[in-house]
């Protein structure tokens, strides 16, 4: 059983389109992080959200933490081929190590 469910699993879109990736759980997290992973490399942190309802923007990427701290979303505006990669959400609970979601593989076609 996956503690963090991500949807969709795969997404193939054209350059310039908008998209949203979701990360859902029945558990409450003290913070939630989003990572991007490119082929042959380790995940790289994009953002950390810690407050329920928090919204953070990173250029064309908007991250939101749910009010109840059980879910999060990542919205990309005007996607570019450079956004292609595996997007992973990861939740922290107390002193435990991070729990990762199953990932969303994004392909942006030029």
């Amino acid at each position: 059983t996956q503690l963090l469910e991500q949807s969709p699993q795969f997404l193939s879109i054209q350059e310039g389109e908008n998209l949203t990736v979701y990360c859902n759980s029945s558990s409450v997290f003290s913070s939630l992080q989003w990572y991007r992973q490119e082929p042959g490399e380790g995940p790289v942190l994009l953002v950390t959200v810690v407050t329920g309802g928090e919204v953070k923007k990173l250029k064309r990427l908007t991250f939101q933490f749910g009010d109840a701290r059980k879910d999060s979303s990542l919205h990309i505006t005007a996607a570019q081929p450079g956004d292609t990669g595996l997007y992973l959400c990861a939740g922290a609970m107390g002193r435990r190590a991070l729990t990762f979601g199953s990932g969303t593989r994004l392909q942006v076609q030029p």
Partner: protein
Amino acid sequence: NAGVTQTPKFRILKIGQSMTLQCTQDMNHNYMYWYRQDPGMGLKLIYYSVGAGITDKGEVPNGYNVSRSTTEDFPLRLELAAPSQTSVYFCASSYSTSSSGNTIYFGEGSWLTVV
């Protein structure tokens, strides 16, 4: 800037063989982790350590062992390799627990195939 360094990058093992994946970090981080990532999937925690001399099991510890004799090093040992252990292994480290939003830094991964 070294960060988290893993070796080897690639390895093919025969069933029943043993090997150690090495991991070292030069950021003086207390926390270190080993994750495995199966094709197209997220990361699953194998073992982690909150400091030298302290290790704890993660989600999928069976078939693996770790030690943390120094702050810098956190080797992962496979004693009797099985095909189910074919995966990409990532070592990672962080200054403190991730609940406070600390960044986790990952190595580049070790591709292991058991045949």
